[in-house]
């Protein structure tokens, strides 16, 4: 268990020593900021609805761009061979890397607090939905990170890992919007699978334990799949 932290710490160092981390965080802030402020004054409402509305889509591209390195790079430079021969369990490696990604998502969301704080100066902002939305955003981010981690464990090519990860994330994000012409029962079923459906509950300020369970199930399934994919390499 204590072996998780050195792995996590090393990955975090690796992210923040290279310029890629800062580029990705800047792109994230720019995109979400632009989408948010471009409609903010038109709607004339002191809420973060628009920011949260687009978050699943932005994250579908941003998160896999971070996670694509996790395993793919270790495979391609060969350091995975050293990592796998340390006296640690496979799950410790996976959790260590996942924990590092969770920290990264946290640091990525942190600067966006600038939006609600600046709004609260000019309007009457209800902080309840904002806090709830941020919890949802973090859960959404880390569940996408688990998807990206899985994609990265499949291949030593980072671009492929990014594409696979992005595709799965986009599919989960858009699932509820693709079901216009489906019968009611099918829609409810696929709605439950859609990450956007669960995340929008958070952004409305509804804290439902079922939505939390949904995100943790996604994380569990994809971390487990990562374990299988790595075991298969032996």
């Amino acid at each position, binding site marked *: 268990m204590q*072996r998780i932290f050195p792995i996590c710490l090393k990955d975090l160092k*690796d992210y923040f020593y290279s310029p890629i981390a800062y580029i990705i965080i800047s792109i994230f802030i720019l995109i979400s900021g632009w989408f948010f402020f471009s409609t903010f004054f038109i709607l004339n409402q002191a809420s973060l609805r628009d920011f949260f509305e687009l978050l699943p889509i932005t994250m579908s591209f941003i998160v896999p761009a971070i996670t694509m390195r996790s395993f793919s790079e270790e495979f391609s430079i060969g350091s995975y061979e050293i990592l796998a021969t340390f*006296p640690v369990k496979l799950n410790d490696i996976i959790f260590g890397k996942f924990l590092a990604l969770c920290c990264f998502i946290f640091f990525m969301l942190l600067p966006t607090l600038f939006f609600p704080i600046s709004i609260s100066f000019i309007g009457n902002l209800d902080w309840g939905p904002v806090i709830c939305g941020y919890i949802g955003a973090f859960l959404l981010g880390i569940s996408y990170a688990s998807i990206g981690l899985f994609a990265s464990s499949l291949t030593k090519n980072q671009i492929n890992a990014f594409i696979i990860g992005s595709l799965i994330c986009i599919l989960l994000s858009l699932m509820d919007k693709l079901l216009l012409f489906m019968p009611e029962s099918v829609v409810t079923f696929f709605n439950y699978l859609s990450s956007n459906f669960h995340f929008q509950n958070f952004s409305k300020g509804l804290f439902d334990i079922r939505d939390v369970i949904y995100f943790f199930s996604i994380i569990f399934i994809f971390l487990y799949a990562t374990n299988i994919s790595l075991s298969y390499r032996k």
Partner: protein
Amino acid sequence: MIEVKDLTKYYNKFLALDKISFKVSRGEIVGLLGPNGAGKTTTLRLLTGYLKPTSGSIKVKKYNIIDDYLKIKAIMGYLPESVPIYKNLMVYEYLSYVGAIRGIDKKNLLSKIKSVANRCQIKDILEKDIGDLSKGLLQRVGLASVLLHDPEVLILDEPTTGLDPNQILEIRDLIKEIGKKKTVILSSHILSEVEATCSRVIIINKGKIVADGTPSELKEKYLGKTIINLSLKKANFDQVKNCFQGIEEIIAINLIEEKDDTLDIELTLKNDIREKIYNIIKQRDWIILEFSKKKTSLEKIFKEITTEN
């Protein structure tokens, strides 16, 4: 220390290792030798637990690689070929990362890093980025990182590839020095390297062990013959031939050169009877200019047993 039994590994349908068995005892430096693609790296990867064997067993001390893999990994140090380590970190950071992941507590970590840095002579580069290091320095950092937890078994995959001749000598000396206290298994396709560093050689070809023994044992077994170069003054070939005719250990006498009154010949002997030959020459009034045993290299053996069929 290490016991390998009927180890077999298939990659899909490709047979990489075919029922190999060997034992390594404590304090040996064993060289795995073989042409490219013979199965050296596969053997090492199986020993370290990076790959799972298709069948067969590996035991290190009392531990079985499948059930007690964590215990085996804890007493083992493994350095893959070309030292794949993180380019973004500083040497010091990498060593502390390895120490932490190996469970060395913080109090001891600093002194351990200092001592391996001394041993591998990387004290001055601890604060450099790994990405900026030359190949030789990188190799030393790699060695330092596998020595950090004081492993009982060291496994090195082609530890000197890509180094310049001076660096090769340095790394070899370092490996010999390490091998005084620890069990070392290294792979190589360079014969002189194995001959210079290893106390025992295992030659692998096409996934099978074709020879196993100390370098001198192998030479005797596979070459069997002793070849002697003789250079004599005041002698002629016929005289010499007559003189040695009665000795049954001599297989052949070849004339290399006869110039003025000096004679160069080559004797092929069944076994080393240099004393006898010397005594015969002593009785004559020939003058010995050269009397030497021709060194037979592992190279010949290697070529002979890996190019069959």
